[in-house]
């Protein structure tokens, strides 16, 4: 019996389904959409009737939940649905790989670079949690963030050991492993006060499951910029830059971080900030869709990149490792992580340069 008590007040306005990016790509016959999945499944109360190929297509972009006039917890319910069918052994090979990796390496991906010991400490006021992708795939995010934090003068460290935050497991519906990872991390996190992370996925997860109030790198950069600890150099050519609004920043940990990102960009001289048609449209990088339905993720990323191309954007910034990774997959246009871009545009500062 699947029971979600607060989903019964749907008025069937269909705002959710109309706005769902996956419905718009796949059509209602393949992905039946948030209302059908959440509201109706709860009505019939039959977890066995949930189609995995349906419920695992959702990117957890939270768009439906944002729009629902009845404030129904739609995206949250999709995660609940996944939980309720997890035990039926319904995962695709891509999904299973994530779990395998976590069991083997403590990371959601296969490590391909050396672990960097340098910043590992046992105690610090601020914990930098890079997340799996920044550490092992798009390592520039890791490097830039370290430099940004150093330049900001904050006292930080990376815990001696850490494991994947568990966000991908939440997306798969694996609640048991998720708790296991959380407990391990909470042990490692002992000795740190605040957490900052490069990944909105990790941040959302810390907020929901670790009872922490995590920061995203942008928040620290913004703070430090206001304190004039970070100053930008001016660029020669007018680079056309656009900002992608990652769903898990914009709709789960808070839209104010997007505003801060624009504040920061405004201070970088010599760039032109371009508005996309749909800056907050999901890029397809979330919800474990890349692993489960790579073609769907690719299509969503392509739409986003075409939006950028259409506006003749020279560089698309995405403050999220998952988004960067997925947005690069279509191979159209340049995509960079926000922190990396900011770090590369810092004006030289006396002490700050030593590390370079």
């Amino acid at each position: 019996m699947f029971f979600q008590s607060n989903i019964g007040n749907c008025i069937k306005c269909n705002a959710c389904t109309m706005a769902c990016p996956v419905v718009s790509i796949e059509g209602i016959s393949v992905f039946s959409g948030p209302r059908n999945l959440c509201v109706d499944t709860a009505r019939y109360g039959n977890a066995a009737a949930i189609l995995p190929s349906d419920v695992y297509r959702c990117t957890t972009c939270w768009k439906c939940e944002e729009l629902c006039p009845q404030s129904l917890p739609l995206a949250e319910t999709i995660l609940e649905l996944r939980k309720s069918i997890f035990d039926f052994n319904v995962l695709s090979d891509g999904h299973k790989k994530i779990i395998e990796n976590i069991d083997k390496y403590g990371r959601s991906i296969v490590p391909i670079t050396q672990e960097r010991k340098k910043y590992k400490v046992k105690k610090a006021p601020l914990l930098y949690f890079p997340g799996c992708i920044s550490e092992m795939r798009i390592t520039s995010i890791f490097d830039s963030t370290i430099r940004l934090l150093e330049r900001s003068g904050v006292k930080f460290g990376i815990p001696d050991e850490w494991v994947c935050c568990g966000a991908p497991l939440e997306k798969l519906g694996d609640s048991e492993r998720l708790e296991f990872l959380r407990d391990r991390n909470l042990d490692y996190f002992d000795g740190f006060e605040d957490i900052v992370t490069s990944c909105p996925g990790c941040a959302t997860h810390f907020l929901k499951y670790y009872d922490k109030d995590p920061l995203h790198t942008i928040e620290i950069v913004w703070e430090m910029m206001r304190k004039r600890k970070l100053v930008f150099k001016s660029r020669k050519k007018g680079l056309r830059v656009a900002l992608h609004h990652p769903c898990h920043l914009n709709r789960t940990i808070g839209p104010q971080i997007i505003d801060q990102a624009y504040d920061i960009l405004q201070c970088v001289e010599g760039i032109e900030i371009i508005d996309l048609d749909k800056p907050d449209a999901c890029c397809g990088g979330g919800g474990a869709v890349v692993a489960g339905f790579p073609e769907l993720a690719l299509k969503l990323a392509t739409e986003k990149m075409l939006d950028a191309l259409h506006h003749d954007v020279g560089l698309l910034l995405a403050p999220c490792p998952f988004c960067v990774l997925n947005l690069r997959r279509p191979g159209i246009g340049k995509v960079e992580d926000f922190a990396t871009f900011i770090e590369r545009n810092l004006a030289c500062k006396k002490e700050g340069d030593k590390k370079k």
Partner: protein
Amino acid sequence: MFKTEVLVIGGGATGAGIARDLALRGAEVTLIEGSDFAFGASGRCHGMLHSGARYAVTDPISASECAIENKILKRIADFCIEDTGGFFIGLPNDDECYPDLFMSACRKAGVDAIEISVNEAFKEEPLLSENIVASIDVPDASIDPFMLVLGNIESARSAGSTALNYHLVRKFDVRESRIEKVYVENLRNGSIDEYRPEIVINATGAWANHIAALAGVSIDLTMDKGSMVVLGRRFTHRLINRLRKPSNGDIVVPNYSSSIIGTTSITVSSPTSTSVSEQEVDLLMREAAMMMPPINASRAIRAYAGIRPLVSRKGGDSREISRTFQLIDHSEKGIENLISVIGGKLTTYRLMAEKVSDIVCSRLGISASCRTSLEPLSIPYGEMHNKMIGRGSPTVEIQTHENNGELRRDEVVCSCEKIKRQEVEFWASHPDVRGLSDVMRRTRAGMGYCQSGLCVFNLLTMLIEYSDTDPLYLLTEYLKEREKGIKPVLLKGQIVEEIFKECLLNGVYHISDLAEALRNEENAEGRN
């Protein structure tokens, strides 16, 4: 002038069952229904296929009848039964002696009741109240009464009899203690047909007295209204009953996507007094929430009521009157060829039909014996059946064709209830169907939580292909009918939906303006 051996009046479960039984025995039968099939108590019942347990203590005869018929119906009508099983649960302040009384009464009546531990009950139905102190497992089931009646109609027709809906019996010609002629108005075109039956069966339920009066005899009937509330979701797999003497609000029946709480018991004066008050809704939800607390915070989408015709025993609470049916042979009072059959339950309709048919056959000199307990009912949507298994569950959309290894859905026209286009199409073109309510009764399209707000245009578009009636008229009549059931539950969570629908229907589509314009036009034509 039509001749027929038997004329059955009333197209509820009883009438349809009789028509089928007689037809299978080779009698020439015409069934006349004044509205749509299952329009009366049959379509307004609780949808519970009794195991007999509910009546075991208070009405043992009914209980054992139900126990037998329950098994038969599960065999012959499985297409319209969801074999959910049922629990009887006891709460802390309920009579402590009742469970023992109940168990021994069930044993005596032949009801398979099994006591199970409270923990086990919880494991099976996690939404039950934490306070339950006793739980008993019984073979109750959920039944779709519309499909049951239509299945009987279909069987009767395929065995050669005629069944007409929207044909109202208006008048009898009584001569020498016999009904010579029956005048039937065809409501589709207003024409009057005459029938010359040898025997007339009055199976009009709460209207029985009205029909008897046409022949100049009378039946002492009490009319007992029972109200029900439909909640927009299921809470359990099983039917949940309160383990106590039958009372208000002690049954919750899972019905496709919804749950139906029932019932109340109020004596009324007319077979059409089916409006439900907000107090009744309150009472039902309060009582049911004691068994299942989430009901408190759940949304009610509709309320409706049915009338139980009870043959009077003077005085007393109407719930005390036996539910077992009455056969009244009016020859004693002066009409030789009229038999009335009243009461009973949906669950025992077949048995009632068998008893009536036995008498009719002996009068007609037919020696064939009853076959209705052996032969499965015809499925009303015939060859469509395979495509419709599992209707009313999200799986229906899913059990479709493979496409590149992916399952795809068929087009659904009523998304609350997951009703497919083919199904509505089939019924919209069916000669029995006149209005949108008829489509709804047959498909469930429009019964969901939006209460037809959105699918109504889909349904209408399909229906007008086959109907000469003005679409606007069909639409407004239907919505008016729907409104009646929504009003009593507005404050139980339906109001936001209704405001949204109002904006859509009248703010965007201007339905009421258009309807008024249509009325004015008609009035103007009338004056010319």
